[in-house]
């Protein structure tokens, strides 16, 4: 069979604007080549900055922002689309090649009905009449499992949920009957339990319409479910390219091997201990508009152990951290540190009480003052809590930097001069500087690339082993939970639905929600999605 898409030695550049300096030309993609046959799916995978989205958009001869395609060819059915002029390329976009963006919420025009936007490309390109296009959109809404497909198109984007929008965007891409669709991280912004439905819908739609696809993601487990081939990218270079089976089961390159195995860290569960460091008893909490976010939450974290609090967006897990720190005083219940009940508001707590509980944030970027150096950031708690100054302070900061495996060469750097992983490490050093008993970790790894995240998790575990720190670790990612937890609390709609030692929480019998959550997490093996869907069909047939 002939190749539908042939990308040959693709080079992509952009202009960078470093503040206060003249613009510089940089290269984002350094000569990447691949081919895609009709009806097949190629997964493009890599960390942020790998150039995967840029390559995806190049399949539509499009460069986002100041991005320019500087060399190579993109052949669609033998024709180099990079050489086409404006009208020629407009004839291809939206009719033969379509695009599904990461954030459908932003990609839909808020001023028009979903249906009008879904049929627009097909109607404007003349591939379908208005009526036929609406007919097809209703069919596609059905295939994609959207509620009430006949009237779904009459709604406005803000009237439907995020998962539904993502599926509507897929329908929009499928409507003109394209030969190729570029999926750009279509499920990344979604919760796992929503992701699995969207993933299943996309897979079914691709199968039914025999469209070829480029599927771009940073999640190898996801791409393993939908692709025939996978290309691994890093810093704009191809690392490895081959059939999905080979990449997942017999990777050739070290980098790919690391990507495949990164989720397999497992912490040995510690034995049960009675002396709780933090104890939360029957806590209710509400925001000022009386919207109640926590209902009767009771958990505790033992000394030297990790409690993982897991849940999806809106489950109240971050609110729990705010209650513990005293940013949001609970309306009922109490927070106890060791044996003393903490005042509900942080402003009423003593310096000593504040010192004992430190916090790690998801965005290390915004957690550090960009106008302070590492010395100031890590040194301030030393001065504030222990009165260290001058030489003594510098010595201690250097010591802390050693502890987080960074070395004292970083002491005079500003946060902007650090990588994402280094920033989070400096935040850890700042927390350690206070010599706390407990660190609250609010998704500290979820904004990081998987390999960097794994490094942070290992560091946290090493520090725990050395100093008997207790962690309350908030996350939405089950793999992270497996990696670090001794005990787990599963949160759903503001309640703790399951709490206990890791082995117990992760073994059956499950409650409904935990069951759904665990089964929705993509596993790094081929055919996982089909299995889950088959089980679901069996269950629903059995009812």
């Amino acid at each position, binding site marked *: 069979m002939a190749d539908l898409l042939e990308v040959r030695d693709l080079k992509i550049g952009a202009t960078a604007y470093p*503040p*206060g*300096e*003249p613009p510089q030309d940089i290269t984002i993609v350094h000569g990447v080549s691949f081919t895609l046959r009709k009806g097949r799916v190629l997964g493009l995978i890599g960390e942020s900055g790998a150039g995967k989205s840029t390559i995806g958009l190049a399949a539509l001869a499009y460069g986002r922002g100041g991005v320019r395609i500087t060399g190579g060819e993109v052949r669609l059915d033998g024709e180099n689309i990079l050489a086409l002029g404006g009208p020629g390329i407009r004839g291809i976009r939206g009719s033969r090649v379509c695009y599904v963006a990461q954030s459908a919420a932003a990609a839909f025009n808020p001023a028009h009905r979903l249906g009008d936007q879904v049929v627009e490309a097909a109607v404007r390109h003349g591939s379908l009449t208005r009526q036929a296009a609406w007919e097809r959109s209703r069919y596609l809404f059905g295939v994609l499992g959207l509620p009430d497909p006949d009237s779904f198109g009459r709604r406005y984007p803000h009237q439907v949920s995020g998962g539904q929008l993502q599926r509507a965007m897929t329908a929009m891409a499928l409507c003109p009957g394209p030969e190729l669709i570029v999926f750009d991280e279509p499920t990344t912004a979604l919760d796992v339990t929503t992701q699995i439905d969207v993933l299943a819908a996309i897979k079914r739609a691709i199968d039914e319409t025999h469209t070829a696809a480029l599927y771009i993601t940073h999640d190898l487990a996801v791409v393993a479910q939908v692709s025939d081939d996978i290309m691994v990218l890093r810093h704009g270079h191809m690392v490895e390219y081959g059939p999905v089976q080979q990449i997942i089961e017999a990777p050739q390159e070290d980098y790919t091997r690391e990507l495949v195995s990164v989720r397999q860290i497992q912490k040995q569960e510690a034995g049960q201990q009675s002396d709780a460091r933090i104890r939360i008893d029957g806590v209710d909490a509400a925001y000022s508009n009386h919207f109640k976010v926590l209902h009767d939450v009771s958990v505790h974290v033992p000394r030297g152990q990790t409690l993982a609090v897991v849940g999806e967006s809106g489950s109240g897990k971050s609110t729990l951290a705010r209650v513990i*720190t*005293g*940013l949001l005083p609970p309306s009922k219940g109490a927070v106890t540190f060791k044996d003393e009940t903490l005042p509900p508001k*942080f402003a009423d*707590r003593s*310096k000593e009480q*504040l*010192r004992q509980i430190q*916090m790690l*944030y998801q*965005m290390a970027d*915004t*957690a*550090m*003052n*960009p*106008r*302070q150096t590492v010395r100031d950031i890590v040194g*301030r*708690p030393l001065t*504030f809590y222990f009165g260290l100054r001058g030489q003594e302070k510098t010595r201690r900061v250097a010591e802390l930097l050693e502890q987080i495996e960074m070395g004292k060469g970083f002491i005079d750097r500003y946060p902007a001069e650090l990588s994402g992983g280094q920033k989070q490490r400096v935040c850890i050093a*700042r927390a350690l500087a*206070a010599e706390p008993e407990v660190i609250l970790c609010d998704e500290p790894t979820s904004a990081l690339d998987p390999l960097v995240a794994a490094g942070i998790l290992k560091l946290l575990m090493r520090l725990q082993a050395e100093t008997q720190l207790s962690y309350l670790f908030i996350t939405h990612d089950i793999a992270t939970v497996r990696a670090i937890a001794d005990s787990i609390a599963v949160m759903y709609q503001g309640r703790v639905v399951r709490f206990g030692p890791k082995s117990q929480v992760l073994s059956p019998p499950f409650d409904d929600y935990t069951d759904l959550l665990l089964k929705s997490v993509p596993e790094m093996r081929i055919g996982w999605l089909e299995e889950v869907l088959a089980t679901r069909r069996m269950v629903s047939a059995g009812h």
Partner: protein
Amino acid sequence: MRWRAVPISAWVGMAGLALAIFCALFAPWIAPFGEREVVGDIWLPMGGDYLLGTDNLGRDLLSRLIYGAQTTISVALAATVLAFCMGVFLSFTAAVVGGWTDQGLSRVNDLMMSIPTLIFALIVLAVLPQELWILVAVIAVLESTRVFRLGRAVALDITVMEFVEAARLRGEGRQWIIFREILPNALSPLLAEFGLRFAFAVLFLSTLSFLGLGIQPPEADWGGIVKDNKDGIIFGIPAALIPGAAIAGLAICVNLVVDWLLNRTSSLKGGRGDG
């Protein structure tokens, strides 16, 4: 920062500003004649002993202009500095303390801003005696409402950042949070705003003087010189246009520099319009 990255427009602006400030600082030494010295006939043309001609009373226009720079720039600068001290202090307090303090200050500010600046100034100046410090205070209060709006927006943006939360949870006091955490991050938008406010103060002061409500004669200031010489226009004498051009030139120079500053800092909030 590299000097080569500074665009020509910014250089032009800085050169113009430097010239104006030089005139203001050394007026008595560089002005060829005295501020109030009648040197010749009225409205003498340009050239000869009087580079820019003479004004409606026969005073040397160039000397008036140089002395005018001193008055205009110092009054506008004083008003702007005062406006910033008030606006930044109040807005940061509002953003950091929050609650009723913020509500109260913000509502009063909204009320002040719902009356156009010039109209507000006219009403107040209709009642108050015509004295220099009152003029400075009036301009400063009106300007401070705009500074308050921007300062509060910038400070609120920064207060919700996690490093401020981290400082609060550490137990830091309000002083530390305002001066060590928020202010250093608000400096560049505030600096740009300072430029815009200064340009606006120059225009505003000149407008008031032009209307006869600002600096009182015989002291020279640019708006006042326009007023003195406006009757010459009907006879085709362009003396009134020269101080007008000086005002416009100074404002343009400030805007050029601010425009460059704004392009360098992406995090600026708030509009640049004025009412």
